């Protein structure tokens, strides 16, 4: 095991879960990976110009945590939480249309990649400045508290992003007010080219919760069931009025920071090690072992995912491009 990686969780028995739920998780990881790969391909074909920040290797963390949320809960995905967007109900076509800069997409070409939200789907969009979504999602949680709604807000941050002031202020604020907020810190070992020992002298990231007097947990971020369970526990705590939780998920960024980055600074053995812990492959093995999935079953899910992806790609590509009408642009600056 390379330095900076923790041991994998001992896979829990899948008994006690509805097969449809488990297969749904698997399907959403496949959807995420398929869409992620399609975005990468479209970029390489010169068909989109948006920043491509791959979610590869982190699908389990996004899908598993979001699966613990109700539809009316707010999720605030960061750039590597494509799985969260899909799991919380954003159609693939909708997501792709933003990457493709289409006029009828969620930002009408005004912002790229996954930089958008949808109030209709209870998704808050990020900005490029990492950590900003933490106090903003705390604000969503504050509105739930003020209105007596039993909703919860979930957002994510990385090992790098956790060093900005927004992280500290947001968690401290949420702690003081016991806000229904869950923050998953995906420790994916690299913030662009900077390894975690250049980010913090602390022994880990979860220990920061103690400084805010809030609950914390750590989890194998590549074990989708473990992520689901730890998030569910935190969400229940939040819904019961017991305040926020910081969860550190141990995972690995399997691509460069963005598509242009070949990530040569990442040791080869670290990538090879984490390849053996791929969230999709390991979960497939568990489903097979539990006799919940066979090759035919996998093929049929995969066929449906491919169909969905092709349709989404066709439909998103067919959407109109922005015209650059200046009055329209000026007219949409203010509500």
């Amino acid at each position, binding site marked *: 095991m390379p330095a900076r990686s923790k041991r994998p969780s001992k896979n829990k028995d899948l008994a006690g879960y509805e097969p449809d739920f488990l297969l749904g998780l698997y399907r959403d990881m496949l959807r995420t990976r398929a869409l992620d790969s399609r975005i990468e391909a479209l970029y390489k074909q010169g068909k989109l110009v948006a920043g491509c920040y791959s979610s590869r290797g982190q699908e389990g963390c996004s899908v598993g945590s979001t699966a613990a949320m109700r539809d009316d809960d707010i999720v605030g995905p960061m750039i590597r939480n494509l799985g969260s967007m899909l799991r919380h109900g954003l159609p693939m076509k909708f997501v792709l249309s933003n990457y493709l800069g289409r006029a009828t997409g969620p930002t009408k070409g005004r912002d790229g990649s996954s930089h958008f939200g949808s109030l209709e789907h209870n998704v808050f969009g990020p900005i*490029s400045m990492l950590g*900003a979504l933490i106090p*903003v999602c705390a*604000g*969503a949680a504050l509105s739930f508290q003020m209105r007596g709604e039993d909703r919860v807000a979930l957002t994510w941050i990385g090992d790098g992003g956790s060093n900005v002031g927004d992280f500290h202020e947001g968690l*401290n604020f949420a702690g003081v007010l016991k806000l229904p907020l869950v923050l998953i810190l995906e420790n994916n070992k690299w913030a662009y080219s900077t390894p975690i020992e250049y980010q913090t002298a602390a022994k880990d990231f979860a220990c920061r919760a103690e400084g805010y007097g809030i609950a914390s947990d750590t989890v194998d971020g590549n074990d989708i069931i473990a992520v689901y369970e730890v998030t569910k526990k935190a969400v229940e705590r939040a819904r019961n009025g017991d305040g926020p939780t910081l969860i550190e998920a141990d995972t690995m960024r399997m691509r460069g920071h963005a598509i242009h980055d070949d990530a040569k600074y990442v040791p080869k053995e670290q990538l090879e090690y984490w390849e053996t812990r791929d969230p999709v492959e390991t979960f497939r093995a568990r489903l097979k072992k539990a006799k919940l999935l066979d090759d035919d079953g996998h093929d049929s899910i995969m066929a449906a995912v491919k169909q969905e992806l092709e349709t989404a790609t066709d439909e998103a590509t067919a959407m109109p491009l922005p015209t650059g009408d200046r009055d329209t642009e000026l007219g949409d600056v*203010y*509500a």
Partner: protein
Amino acid sequence: MSAITYIEAIREAMYEELHRDPDVYCLGEDIGTYGGAFRATAGFLEEFGRPRILDTPLSEIAIMGASIGSAMLGMRPIAEMQFADFVANGFNMLVNFAAKVHYRWGPSCPMVVRLPTGGGTRGGPFHATNPEAWFTRVPGLKVVCPATVYDAKGLMKAAVRDDNPVLYFEHKYLYRRLKDELPQGDWIVPLGEARVAREGRDVSVITYGSMVYHAGLVAETLAADGIDVEIIDLRSLIPLDEEAILESVRKTNRVVVLHEDTKTGGFGGEISARIAEFAFEHLDAPIRRVASLDTPVPHAPQLEDAFMPMPADIEAAIRATVTY
């Protein structure tokens, strides 16, 4: 009916809005138990309770972020910066999140940020600045600068009801200096409508905030010498009532642009540019700007007086413009 002060008008506006709309709430440092550093929210906690009147940790980023997150879900926060200077700590939230979110993906972000601003109070480099020009160039934000008791109330109520982030610059020098009797009932002052604070024939002074008060005093002095000064109080910088400025300039043909913020990059540059662009042929004299020195706001009275536009500076600029 009794006269109230500028800050009492702000308080009254918030009080009425809190009663009118259950989505309105106040947050900031020391605004609850203490009633705010300037007492703008005195008694609110007793009346509305926590968390609607929310004493926050000392965290400007969290105050701004929480305002944004709740506003996107339909709440209408009124966030207090204890001093306008401290908005620097929440800058990113305002200029990158609040300002851009509607244009980017649609949600409205109805929030008011109260900014006790300005000098003349010996506050020094961190308690006396006029940072409005940091924000007037950020599309998506609105910037309001009340100069009267009436506008302090009416613009606050309009700001609370606006569906955009509104930065409300309330001038500390005016807090207890101005008193007025206000009409009863529910009324607002719409954002983006300038006011002729004083009608005159000879020269236009385009200004806002505390300088409306100072310009008014100077205008009375000059009236004795037969110089008839028109004062345009912009009331809000964004949206800007460009037509009110141009109309006055077309009438008097001479203009002084005045503000308490420092000169370089101050909003006066924008006003001057618009006049030059759209009313050049109406000008009988060059546009003159009167503003603070391009230094940090100094503390000692002798230094602050040298820093800020004083009545003598305003008077000299007006006389030079009229006699050009």
